[in-house]
């Protein structure tokens, strides 16, 4: 099962940089990133090329960090494709907890990262979606 990394950070200057510094020093590349913040703190989610390594590095550096299961879905990079994908989930009664996306360079494909409550049902629902493809862990690492 694919995973990304969630990091709890206080809302203050230099927090994001402290994470990217650690990752770049260990030669870890990022495929995607999202930031959500509350008043005094926020959650940074990253999709690194090597999840296990990134997790260990951040944990060693005493970050408050957790791995979370995700679905990484490839869709066509065109107007309405994300909407189509989300409609499939909605119609199956699957709630999307978090979602961020990235566009693959020099292709007509985009990738979105989804956190959902019920991953197997989401997988099942997305299986037959037109122009929608769930990526394997190997494919994610190779993005």
């Amino acid at each position, binding site marked *: 099962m694919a995973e990304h990394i*969630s990091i709890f950070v*206080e809302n203050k200057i230099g927090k994001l940089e402290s994470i990217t510094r650690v990752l770049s020093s260990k030669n870890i590349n990022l495929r995607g990133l999202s930031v959500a913040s*509350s008043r005094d*703190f*926020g959650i940074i989610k990253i999709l690194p090329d090597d999840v296990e390594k990134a997790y260990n590095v951040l944990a060693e550096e*005493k970050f408050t960090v*957790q791995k979370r299961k995700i679905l990484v879905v490839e869709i066509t990079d065109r107007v309405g494709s994300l909407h189509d994908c989300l409609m499939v989930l909605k119609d199956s009664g699957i709630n999307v907890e978090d979602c961020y996306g990235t566009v693959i360079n020099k292709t007509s494909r985009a990738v979105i990262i989804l956190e959902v409550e019920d991953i197997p049902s989401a997988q099942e629902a997305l299986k037959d979606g037109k122009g929608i493809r769930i990526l394997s862990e190997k494919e994610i690492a190779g993005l």
Partner: protein
Amino acid sequence: MFWVRDIETLLPEKLKELQVSLLDKTVKQAIKSPFYHKKLGEQGLTGISSLEDVNSLPFTEKEDLRSAFPYGFLCTELKEAVRLHSSSGTTGNPTVIFHTRKDIDEWANLIARCMYMTGATESDVFQNMMGYGLFTGGLGFHYGAEKLGMLTIPIGPGNSKRQIWFMKEFNVSVVHILPSYALRLQSLLREMGLDRKRDLPHLRIAYVGAEPHSEAMRKKIEKSLDVKAYNSYGLSEMCGPGVAFECEEQNGLHLWEDSFYMEIIDPETGKVLPEGEEGELVLTTLNREAMPLIRYRTRDLTRIMPGACPCGRTHRRIERIKGRSDDMLIINGVNVFPIQVERVLMGIPGIGTNYVIEVKKDKFMDKLYLKVEVDNKAFKGTLRDMEILEERVTEELKAELSVTPKVKLVESASLPVTEGKAVRVYDLRNT
């Protein structure tokens, strides 16, 4: 002005004689309670015949009150007791203090004596802005003010507009108010478009207590409100307010030695210190029926001021309270022990073991700030979970402390780790 001239000006030798007889009476009364029956009985103590004998009496601690909850200190039959008060913000069992009708009357008399000493008379109109209920500040002053004969407005705390409306409409001349709130009053008046001199022309006296404040703060209150502000000292274990009070000299608080026997001790060794040295105030009640307390350790740090007061009263003065010999914090009049905070935090999954408490002044009010480390092992990774966690910490602390803290979740391992005894409490109110 003397409420009871012969007592207030009793010659020191006579006062000591009175204390010896009252102390003996107190010991004999105290033995009627299960706690002292055991404690004093073990030492074969049945009374005292000189002030030196007091040294042989054991100390009583707040912890004793808790451990003997609920009736371990009660010396009369329950039907003799007419009231109980309970201190806020305690760990485990609350401390409960019982009063007979006579105890309440003596207490009211002491407060009347305090207020009369500062020039309040039956012609004054008194607004009591302290909390009524288990807290002694409200009811204590209420009974005293009625005893004195003032028109008493039992408004309690909060609702500034209503406070000011009553003050204006009823020509209030005397108020009992938290020092932090007294400082705010002037700006509240201005916000309401009112002028102190024009709209509250009768206001002249403010009693400030329930939380320690500096001389500078008193001066500020006096200047901003154009009143005389008198410092009040008391604790619910002794009765409440009325234990010690400033006279018009405003130089130290006369501790009523016909009602309380005072000692200053070294909080580390328990040794009684000579007059004038700073230490922990230890008090013995002299007139209480329902619940006399012997050598009660108040944990308040002060000293006895040597020399006579120009006002003519012979009861010795203590200096304003310098601090505590334990770590209790007083937040807008509410007692808060850091251990309560710790106990709440340790009971919440997802919270780590490290935290920092800060107390600051925010618009003249005390504000409790809390930085709490999250437990990285319990971190689930969603923003919503953290928001819920922060709300839960705030709510549980509020329920425990009766103070609403401003909670901030911080990353695990981000707060400083100290060697040995961790410093977790920063009182930044006077900085």
